[in-house]
């Protein structure tokens, strides 16, 4: 039940209602003074007629004020309305129906919310008369959508039928802005109806200030899709990787947090982990009311490359998004060639003992991301470097001539080389044969007694290969290292000794990298191999030299967000094909950005896995993602609703009325109050005239 005005500008005329009072006050101020002998008779007269006189006086004033108010209201043409019906008459109507199709509508109205909302929209459109025009705007509106008011009911009905639930949150500000834009043209009567479940999440993000334009004089009614029951309400809040990287056939730990939004405990909730459509593991969980529970899944992936993962909640009557998608990039084992320059009969004393243990601590084949292979210097000439990502030379005296050429080709194609020195190491051979590929020109050896060893002083933790050593324990460990034998060199070190001599140096060669550790790989020149930091340092350097690949889990972006993708610079100018979850393909241009190429995908309007088809000739090992996940906003599963008062406060100064769906179905009635007001005005003027005569 409400009253609104067709010509609200005339309401400013209400200010004129103060005129009779002002005139009265002005008259009081302009008093004539008369000296008079019979004042006592005047007093007596006033006393005698005081009550009736004052009553008539105020009645006259009230009637005059009422007459002005009636006139202003009459010009503004008030309309009294009950229910949610449209005008029965009084000129053509321009109506915009904003239909909330956010994900939460799936569970509103006890599961029929969206169907009810569409029926309500159809009811409103069906109530239009000839000459009326309307538009239907869904709340997952994008800036590209075009809308216009139209009078064909059948076209509008088709538009309503075509609107589907979106996976994202309602963009109410954009939808309302569009509604006001459509109504920003002359029309007899303008109307806006929002059909929504008033879910907290969508309206939480709404602010009147975000509207591009608004007209508070346009009547706005919210038709609420309510619910009778309080369903179980939960959703997957977070998915994250539990262990270190994602490797082929390595143990993979995935942690998931499931939230319960409801006031009732969720018991025996089946939570399933599936990868590439195959169910990997499932658990039963109990989630306390308004609480959350973390679950850990253990599995393995048998194949390198991208994998689509999903956590699914299964429980009868559960309201809330039941699925959360994620993308896995499984990394195959990194093959490392260890060249032992000082082999011993005892493995422990061999130059590569500590290196092979650092890369594969258990020694079992499927226990580590790294697969080290040890060869002696004689085997270098026959070793096929294409089978390895990284080559480590440990105290190798001199580089065989035939090997140098193959090594340089290996580096140019993106391979990694880590050089350790030692007592057999001949600096001249390296200086001469590797030349510019060497991180620094090597000079003489420096050795001394173990107790007088140099400490490590400076470490470049900003370097990608050393970032993982920033941990406090590892920092203390590396600073406790003593180095008493090393190869002096000139260059900018990544790690330096206390005396300023470099301990670790780097040089890029083509697509590959060369790193030089100026001390040995065993305990002959330093105690580094027996320190805690040795294992993470060697693994980190190996991954860095192999191109930084270690596999990962990407929990994805929310629906509507923009996905930024990075590619090698050679991709610039080509098109990237994106296949959406509904198999629809879109083309995205790859553009240049600094040293890399980039592409932006902004059409992420569906939840699920998006697959990328890289341009022909592209390198699958380029580091570019091949899939990514898009999820519905986690909070969209929360079914808490705003109250009518809270909604009205949010929409202030827009005058809002909240109606239940039932009110719309019952229809409504509109009465033009102009005629009754005219009658009241005439009656007021007549009464005023009659009373005035009696004075």
């Amino acid at each position: 039940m409400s009253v609104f005005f067709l010509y609200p500008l005339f309401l400013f005329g209400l200010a004129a209602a103060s005129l009779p009072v002002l005139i009265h006050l002005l008259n009081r101020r302009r008093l004539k003074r008369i000296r008079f002998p019979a004042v006592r008779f005047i007093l007596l007269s006033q006393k005698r007629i005081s009550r009736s006189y004052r009553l008539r006086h105020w009645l006259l004033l009230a009637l005059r004020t009422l007459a002005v108010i009636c006139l202003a209201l009459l010009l503004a043409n008030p309309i009294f309305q009950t229910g949610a019906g449209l005008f029965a008459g009084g000129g053509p109507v321009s109506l915009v129906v904003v239909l909330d199709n956010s994900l939460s509508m799936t569970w509103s109205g006890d599961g029929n919310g969206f169907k009810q909302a569409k029926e309500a929209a159809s009811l409103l459109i069906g109530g239009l008369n000839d000459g009326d025009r309307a538009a239907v705007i869904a709340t997952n509106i994008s800036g590209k959508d075009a809308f216009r008011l139209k009078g064909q009911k059948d076209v509008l009905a088709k538009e309503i039928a075509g609107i589907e639930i979106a996976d994202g949150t309602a963009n109410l500000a954009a939808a309302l802005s569009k509604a006001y834009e459509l109504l920003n043209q002359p029309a007899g009567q303008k109307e806006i109806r929002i059909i929504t479940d008033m879910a907290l999440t969508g309206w939480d993000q709404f602010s009147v200030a975000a509207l591009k334009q608004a007209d508070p004089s346009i009547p706005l009614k919210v038709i609420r899709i309510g619910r009778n029951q309080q369903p179980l309400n939960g959703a997957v809040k977070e998915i994250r990787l539990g262990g270190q990287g994602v490797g082929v056939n390595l143990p993979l730990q995935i942690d998931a947090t499931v939230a319960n939004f409801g006031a009732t405990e969720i018991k025996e909730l089946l939570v399933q982990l599936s990868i590439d459509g195959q169910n990997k593991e499932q658990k039963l969980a109990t989630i306390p009311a308004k609480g959350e529970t973390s679950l850990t899944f253990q599995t393995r992936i048998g194949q390198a490359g991208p994998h689509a993962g999903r956590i699914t909640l299964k429980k009868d009557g559960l309201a809330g998004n039941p699925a959360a998608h994620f993308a896995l990039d499984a990394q195959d084992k990194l093959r490392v060639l260890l060249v032992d320059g000082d082999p011993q009969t005892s493995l422990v004393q061999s130059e590569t003992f500590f290196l092979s243990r650092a890369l594969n601590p258990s020694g079992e084949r499927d226990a580590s991301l790294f697969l080290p292979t040890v060869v002696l210097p004689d085997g270098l000439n026959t070793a096929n470097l294409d089978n390895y990502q990284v080559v480590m030379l440990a105290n190798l005296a001199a580089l065989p001539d035939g090997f140098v050429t193959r090594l340089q080709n290996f580096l140019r194609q993106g391979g990694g080389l880590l050089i350790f020195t030692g007592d057999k190491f001949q600096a001249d051979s390296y200086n001469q044969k590797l030349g510019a590929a060497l991180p620094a020109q090597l000079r003489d050896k420096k050795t001394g007694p173990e107790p007088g060893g140099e400490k490590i002083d400076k470490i470049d933790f900003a370097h990608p290969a050393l970032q993982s050593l920033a941990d406090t324990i590892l920092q203390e460990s590396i600073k406790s290292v003593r180095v008493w034998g090393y190869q002096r060199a000139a260059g900018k070190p990544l790690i330096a000794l206390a005396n300023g001599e470099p301990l670790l140096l780097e040089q890029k060669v083509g697509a590959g990298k060369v790193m030089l550790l100026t001390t040995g790989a065993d305990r002959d020149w330093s105690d580094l191999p027996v320190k805690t930091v040795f294992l993470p340092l060697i693994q980190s350097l190996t991954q860095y030299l192999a191109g930084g690949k270690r596999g990962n889990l990407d929990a994805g972006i929310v629906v509507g967000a923009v996905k930024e993708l990075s590619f090698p610079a050679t991709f610039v100018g080509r098109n990237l094909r994106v296949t959406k979850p509904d198999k629809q393909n879109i083309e995205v241009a790859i553009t240049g950005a600094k040293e890399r190429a980039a592409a932006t995908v902004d059409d992420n309007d569906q939840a699920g896995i998006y697959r990328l088809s890289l341009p022909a000739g592209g390198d699958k090992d380029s580091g570019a993602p091949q899939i990514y996940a898009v999820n519905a906003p986690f909070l969209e599963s929360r079914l808490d609703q705003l109250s009518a008062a809270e909604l009205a406060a949010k929409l202030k100064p827009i005058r809002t009325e909240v109606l239940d769906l039932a009110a719309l179905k019952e229809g409504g009635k509109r009465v033009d109050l102009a005629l009754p007001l005219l009658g009241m005005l005439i009656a007021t003027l007549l009464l005023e005239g009659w009373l005035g005569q009696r004075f």
Partner: protein
Amino acid sequence: MADSDKNYFDPKVLAGIANLALRARWVVEGLLSGVHKSRAKGFSVEFEEHREYSPGDEIRRIDWKALGKFDRYMIKEYEDETNLRAYLLVDGSASMNYASDGISKFDYACTLTTSLAYLILKQQDAAGVVTFSNKVESFIPPRSKRDYLLQIIHALESHGPGGETNVAKILEELAGQIRRRGLIVLISDLLDEPELIVKGLRQFRFKGNDVIVFHLLDQAEIDLPFDGNILFEDLEAANLQVIADPRAIRATYKEVVQEFIGNMRKQCHDSAIDYQLISTATPLDRALASYLSWRG
């Protein structure tokens, strides 16, 4: 009466005549033209009272018989005997100064008083004047000398209107002073308590006086002819003021005034006092005619 004579009594015309004596003569001569002569009965000497001798009194006026009676020298006083001894009591309070159109109530009262005195003296009766507000301002005892009119006029002109009205108190005071019977003429707007005024007048009646009351009101006091919102300030009580819309209260005001007049008239009638309401817009002949009708 001929139309040309009407001007004699028109208050507005009279207001234009500054000389009160001339004004009175104008009125009276106009009135008496064609009227029969009064019943003048001549003069005689009549004992009035004894008073104690004081040095300077003539020895011959000592009443030797009274010496035996009172054992003191007493002087015998005589009064000229006349047909009539008239006391003209004129209200000189501030409220009498009101004039809505032309002549004020006080001026009207003075003209009326002078006219009456002129008429009385012309008939060789004695006329005296008392002017008062809340106290006696001047007291001119009645005399029948022809040139006494000048003293009366002087008394009227020497005291302008001012002060509050207290008619009842003045009447009580005068009733003690006036011992010989005669005619008491009260000319006032009577803006006082009617009961107290009539009570004072009754004292004169008890002593055998004839009493005539000329109730003098301005026409505006009767009709309240004003428009718009007005702040009315009382002429006598400085702090008495009221805002009123005359249009709204006029009917009731008239009722109140008529009730007041009716009350005065009734109380006077009950006490055998002649009452005459006079508006300052009324020609003076009505007042004089009222007097003459009394004289029979």
